[in-house]
Each structure stands twice: as structure tokens, then as C-alpha cells.
């Protein structure tokens, strides 16, 4: 233990947090927002989009859930430039950079999980609520928007946030793209200065503390935001 040198951590704190963790948190927040929005749309399509659309969504969800995330990250990184080329009709593949590619990957990937959460939430709202909304003259879309989804978000908020904590940890997989997220930053220093044990221990500690604090926060929210029935 004597030759452990945790000074290396203090010396590199600005880089670790301001560059690495900032990237990780930005990616987590944007991917969670995008994933929840896309996931909600998918859940609505699956529930009331007719047989073709809902079959398509079911297929999508099952496909995504059957693929390892690392693979999708990689695959997207190489694929997105060609999709961009195809969409814009440009003569060359469009380089989007690691951040954009990772963000799109996580949104697309997490949407499948979020859509399952939202679907369960929508199914948990009694049918009478929709009937009551419709009886008042609200359209299907208005019933979703004002009656069903607000209740679903309240009920499912803890689950959505818990999934976001998983997402936060999963973002570390972008290391395969040599991106400087938090883990990437730690690992770069570790390699450069030959301080693998110290840096990886510190990284683990940070992931643990943040995840743990966030789950405690979720538990408090669960109590506070329960829908009074």
C-alpha cells in the first residue's frame, strides 16, 4: 500500500471533473431527456397506433433489448456518418463527432427501455380516466396529454430516474470510442502516469457516490410525489 499515490488524483481533479465528469453528466441528462421523449412517443404508438405501428414498435424494443450496448455504440459511430450522408445527400460521409454519435446512440437505445416503463405506466391508469376525459369532449391526444401522461410521469418518476442512474453508469461504455468522459479521463491519466490502481479506485468511488446519492434522492421523491388518490 505504501507506494499508492493518491496525490495524482488531486493534481488532476480539474481535468477529471471539468472535462470528464462534465461530459458524462451532459450525456446522461440529454440522453435521458431524449430517451424519455422518444420512449413516450413509442409507448403511445404501441398502445394506440394500430397493428402495423405497434408491431413495428414492439419489434424495435425487442431488437434493442437483444443487442449489447457496446456493440450498438460502436456500430452507430461508424454508421451515423453514412446515415448523415444519405439524409443530406452529401458526397462524403458526415463526421458528427464522438459526442453527437454517443448521444444519438444512447437516446435510441434508452428509448426502448423508457418506452417499456411508460407503457406499463399508461396501462396502470384506470380506463375510466380516459372515458371521463373523452366524455368531457377531450380528443384522444388531449386525454393523453392532460389526463394520462401527467399521472404516468408522477407514478413512474422513481422508475424513470432509476433507469437514468443505470444510464449514467452505462455512459462509461463510450470509452470504446476513445472519448474523454469521466472514466475516459481517469483512464487516460492512469495510463499516462502508470497509476492504474489509484485512478480506477477513485473512478469507482465517484460512480458509487453519485449513483448512491441519486438513488437516495429518488427514494425521497417517491414519497413526496406520490399521486394522492
Amino acid at each position, binding site marked *: 500500500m505504501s507506494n499508492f499515490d493518491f496525490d495524482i488524483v488531486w493534481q488532476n481533479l480539474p481535468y477529471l471533473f471539468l472535462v470528464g465528469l462534465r461530459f458524462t453528466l451532459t450525456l446522461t441528462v440529454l440522453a435521458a431527456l431524449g430517451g424519455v421523449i422518444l420512449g413516450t412517443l413509442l409507448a403511445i404508438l404501441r398502445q394506440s397506433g394500430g397493428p402495423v405501428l405497434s408491431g413495428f414498435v414492439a419489434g424495435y424494443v425487442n431488437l434493442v433489448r437483444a443487442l449489447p450496448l457496446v456493440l450498438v455504440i460502436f456500430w452507430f459511430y461508424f454508421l451515423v456518418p453514412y446515415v448523415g450522408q444519405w439524409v443530406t445527400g452529401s458526397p462524403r460521409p458526415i463526421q458528427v463527432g464522438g459526442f453527437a454519435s454517443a448521444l444519438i446512440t444512447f437516446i435510441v437505445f434508452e428509448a426502448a427501455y423508457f418506452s417499456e416503463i411508460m407503457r406499463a405506466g399508461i396501462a396502470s391508469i*384506470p380506463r375510466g380516466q380516459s372515458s*371521463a*376525459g373523452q366524455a*368531457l*369532449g*377531450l380528443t384522444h391526444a388531449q386525454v393523453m396529454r*392532460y389526463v394520462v401522461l401527467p399521472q404516468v410521469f*408522477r407514478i413512474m418518476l422513481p422508475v424513470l430516474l432509476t433507469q437514468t442512474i443505470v444510464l449514467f453508469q452505462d455512459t462509461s461504455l463510450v470509452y470504446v470510442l476513445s472519448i474523454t468522459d469521466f472514466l475516459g479521463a481517469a483512464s487516460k491519466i492512469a495510463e499516462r502516469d502508470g497509476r492504474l490502481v489509484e485512478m480506477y479506485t477513485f473512478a469507482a468511488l465517484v460512480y458509487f457516490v453519485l449513483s448512491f446519492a441519486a438513488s437516495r434522492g429518488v427514494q425521497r421523491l417517491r414519497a413526496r410525489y406520490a399521486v394522492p388518490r
Partner: protein
Amino acid sequence: MSAVIQIENVDKWYNPAVQVLRNVSLTVSRGEVVVVCGPSGSGKSTLIKCVNALEPIQHGRIVVDGEDLGGKGVNLPRLRARVGMVFQHFELFPHMRVLDNLCLAQCKVLGRSRQEAESRALVLLDRVGLTAHAAKFPGQLSGGQQQRVAIARALAMDPVVMLFDEATSALDPEMVSEVLDVMVGLAQSGMTMMVVTHEMGFAGKVANRVVFMDQGEVVEDAPSKQFFEGAGSERARQFLSKILTY
């Protein structure tokens, strides 16, 4: 007297094996209060949902306030907004305050301003005796209070007719009368009403007609006085004796 609800030869199946409504015809005229009763499973709730087009029918015709529900290009949300509906389990929106429950559809469907909607809401909350609870959430109210809010919410849309589906049968006994009082007051104010209920006291007090249904059919449709003095059909008599004995 003009008809507000016209139900003509309606058949309905939930699935091909089970016919829930059989050749049902029924008219509710303006200002009339019609009570619909019958044993469990006889199709009362289904009939009332069909009147609001919450359930489709397979045969026949339903005309509400002059508009055919099955007509081409009929705007169902607009039509439903003119038909108030009160459910057995209240179905207030639990995430909204009482006042917001009353304002939502006024604003989104009728296009009233928030201010207009609120003042209309407060008039109706006053009418059902709940002004003091405007800022509460439904979960903070008793069952009877919630049902009165639900009635006020439906009235806030200025409907031409009110439908009630067993509005008091999910309530604790001591709360039934506060809701029935509101319904009686409404009937006496001239509101057109179609009321599914087993509260024969209510029927005797304000109903113009009583309709008795059994197994998806209208078995009897008589002025209420006549119905209670001696229901014509054996089935209706048996039903009445059962619910009146207890």
C-alpha cells in the same frame, strides 16, 4: 317536446358471441328525467356509454341533440362536450385540484379563457356546496364530495343532457343522500337527464319515466307513477320486489 336523445333499434355486441343490447329503442325529450334500471349485466352501462359514443354500436341509430352519432363527419369530441356524464367511480383527475378538474375541458374543448372557466367553475362548486374545497385534490375529499365535484365538472360544460351511471352505488350509505339531493335539484331545475340507478326513491320523486332493462332488452318503459303502481311485466315486478324488500 323535442327529443334530446333518440335511440332507435340499437344492437350491440362486445364480441360476436355476446349480444349486450337487443333492438333497444328509447327517447328522452327535453326537460325529461328518465330512470333506467334492471339487473346487473342487463346492459344499462353499455347503453349509456353508447349514447356518448364511448362504445360503438353495430346496428341501429342514436341521435343526440339532433346529431346522428354514426353520421358522416360528425365531430364526436364536440358532441360529447354537450353531453354530461357522471360515472360510478367519479373519475376525477387525481393529479389536478378540484378547480382545475372543472376548468380543463372548458378551456381545451370550449375554448373559454381561464378566467371565464374559473368563474363558471366557482358558480357550480357553489351549487354543489363545495366552494371551500376548490383548491384541494380529489384524494382529499370524501366519496360524496368527489361525486358532487364530478357532477359540477360535467355541468361546467353547459350540457344539453346529463347521463348518470349508478352515481351513488359506490358511495358509503351516509353519503348517498348528499349526491341524490344534488341530482334532484338538477332535475327540478329542468335539466334533461338519463339516470341509471336503483334508487327508487329518487325515481319516485323526480323521474318522468322508468325504463326497465333485462338481458339487453328494454322490457318496460312507463311513466314512473304507472311503473311503481304496478309494473306491467313479470320480470320488472320481480326485480322491484327484490330491490325494495331490502
